[in-house]
């Protein structure tokens, strides 16, 4: 049998990749980066780098970058809540997860944005759990019914209780790390076991250009020491907070990501790091950050290619849209993004469900996007030789009335070779009319309800639930909050 080719998209020549990296290394050495975190600055001093304390600026020598690249694992594994199922994050493996940390949800009834509350977070986790092509969950919504001080830990608290999938999350405050870490440790049983079987990825975003805030640098340090993979979310905006050319923004992206990677390695040699980001082609007319712009996706695909060249796991914010409702724009931007991301072999793709520049989630869009992801997975499986000969035997003794529907060969392969979406309309016109002339958005609304009704939540066992609750309450009380919303399990 002939080996199947995995379809691949590569936007950069090796020559251009090398040039981008060379410039990035020069910038790290000569311009340096700003790091507003004392501990990180100390780590750089201890490693012999020049640190300007006044400016909070460090100059990173190429030798250190090279050492840190060597000590960073080229792939990592995430495990589900039970620790039984593993997911490789590396090579060309692709995993989609709902975009993270948004403060609005599209209400399917009013078609307007509103603030999410605890029950929305529960629904998102439960829904993600039953979507086949969304491999990871994320702490995608920030709950408006708890004070913002505990917004980070609270969303993890909900996600861990209602979905078994590995989780993409992150801190909003330096003190947020401790309770979040404790919850993860509680589920694994020990710190060692969590290190062995990571359950969560922590995102950390540098501020363009070339700045790591106190919070994000601390997240890198804390995560590295705990063995939690850090996802570096560099997010230059072309012509606004990074150079306007795509190649120029790529240089800045590499500088920011490499500096983050070095912080992780200095905090703990060998700690897992994901080369990621959320840059955008800044819209010079509206002053917005379109994630559905083709140039945004080109930057994403290209930095992921550089990440792979550096032998690192990769991430991007793709398969999402800037539309405000579920319309054609929502579909095509998400579709193009998912396809480009999958063809680029990006390991963690955050985006499904998102609208309006990463600021609004829609459960209905998430179930539609699940099908887009399904198609993307099918695409990257490529075209395989399934049998020998390919077709000659099937056409042997060809007659005018020959058809293939009843052939065992058809039955054997049709489900393997073809992907069957549930929501995409493939009916005849008359059938579509007789089914009520529904748009995909209307069908998605029914699908969300059906999935949530038919799939009871996969809850944590009671003892662990109690333990998580204790951690959450302690965290809340340390912030002067006495009560948390009641959690209703429908």
């Amino acid at each position: 049998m002939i080996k199947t080719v995995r379809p691949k998209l590569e936007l950069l020549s090796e020559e251009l990749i090398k040039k981008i990296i060379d410039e990035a290394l020069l910038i790290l050495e000569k311009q340096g980066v700003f790091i507003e975190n004392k501990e990180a600055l100390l780590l750089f001093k201890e490693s012999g780098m020049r640190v300007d304390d006044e400016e909070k600026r460090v100059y990173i020598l190429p030798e250190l970058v090279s050492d840190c690249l060597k000590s960073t694992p080229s792939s990592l594994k995430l495990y589900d809540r039970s620790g039984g199922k593993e997911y490789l994050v590396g090579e060309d493996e692709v995993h989609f997860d709902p975009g993270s940390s948004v403060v609005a949800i599209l209400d399917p009834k009013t078609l307007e944005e509103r603030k999410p509350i605890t029950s929305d977070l529960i629904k998102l986790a439960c829904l993600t759990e039953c979507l086949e092509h969304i491999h990871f969950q994320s702490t995608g919504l920030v709950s408006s019914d708890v004070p913002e001080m505990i917004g980070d830990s609270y969303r993890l608290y909900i996600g861990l209780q209602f979905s078994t999938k590995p989780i993409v999350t992150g801190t909003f405050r330096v003190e947020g790390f401790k309770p979040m870490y404790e919850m993860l440790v509680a589920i694994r049983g020990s710190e060692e076991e969590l290190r062995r079987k990571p359950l969560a990825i922590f995102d950390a975003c540098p501020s363009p250009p070339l700045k790591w805030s106190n919070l994000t640098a601390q997240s890198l340090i804390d995560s590295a020491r705990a063995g939690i993979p850090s996802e570096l979310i560099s997010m230059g905006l072309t012509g606004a907070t990074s150079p306007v050319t795509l190649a120029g923004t790529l240089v800045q992206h590499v500088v920011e990501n490499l500096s983050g990677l070095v912080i992780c390695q200095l905090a703990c040699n060998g700690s897992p790091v994901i080369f990621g980001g959320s840059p955008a082609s800044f819209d010079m007319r509206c002053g917005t950050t379109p994630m559905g712009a083709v140039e945004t996706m080109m930057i994403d695909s290209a930095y992921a290619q550089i990440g792979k060249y550096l032998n690192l796991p990769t991430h991007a914010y793709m398969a999402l849209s800037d539309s405000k409702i579920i319309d054609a724009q929502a579909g095509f931007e998400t579709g193009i993004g998912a396809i480009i991301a999958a063809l680029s072999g990006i390991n963690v793709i955050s985006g499904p469900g998102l609208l309006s520049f990463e600021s609004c989630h829609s459960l209905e869009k998430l179930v539609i996007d699940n099908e887009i992801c399904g198609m993307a997975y099918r695409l990257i499986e490529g075209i395989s030789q399934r049998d020998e000969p390919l077709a000659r035997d099937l056409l042997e003794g060809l007659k005018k009335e020959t058809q293939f529907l009843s052939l065992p060969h058809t039955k054997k392969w049709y489900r393997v070779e073809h992907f069957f979406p549930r929501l995409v309309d493939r009916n005849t016109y008359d059938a579509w009319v007789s089914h009520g002339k529904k748009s995909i958005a209307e069908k998605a609304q029914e699908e969300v309800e059906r999935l949530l009704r038919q799939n009871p939540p996969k809850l944590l066992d009671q003892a662990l639930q109690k333990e998580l609750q204790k951690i959450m309450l302690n965290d809340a009380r340390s912030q002067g909050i006495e009560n948390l919303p009641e959690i209703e399990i429908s």
Partner: protein
Amino acid sequence: MSISEIFEEMKKSIIEGNREEAARLAKRAIEEKLDFNEVIERGYIPGIQKVGELWEKGDYFLPELISGAEAMKEAMAVLEPELKKANIQTKSLGRVVIGTVEGDIHDIGKNLVASMLSAHGFEVIDLGADVKLERFIEVATAQKARFICLSALLTTTMTGQKKFLKMLEEKKLREKFLVLVGGAPVSKSWAEEIGADGYGENAMIAVKVAKELLKQ
């Protein structure tokens, strides 16, 4: 070159966003002892107004808009010491204290708004990024500012805007200032919810909102 030709050149320098030219012409105005009020009113201001028009029409995008504002700033920086020396009061629409709230080190949006406000005749005191909420009040009180503008790019830091308004209430200072909020995650409904006086979805609208508020 006649005086009206010089004014025309000044206007052009702003429309083209040519900082060097705008500054050079301002120096020339000083050398030739031109009437500073006329220089501003007939030379530079028509330029920035034209930039605004071109933006509204959709011919200009942000890079042209902001270059125009920067050129304006550059020219005014040359003129200001002379204005002071000659004790000439320029028309100020009001003093504005602006900054990105604590915990947030993003400042591009804030910088855009600051530039546009200053180009349109407001006196802007820019406190930079990651600014303690108390500091806004201190500076605004000391400088007798009319406006306080708070920027936040992160969903996690926009809550600082809410805290700030509460703080003003508690200190019984709410009536003293007009508070404008902005930033990527900020919306009109958020501004209303926290009780801010105004919100602009972009820098040009921020200028409009500020001017509207002055009328009330």
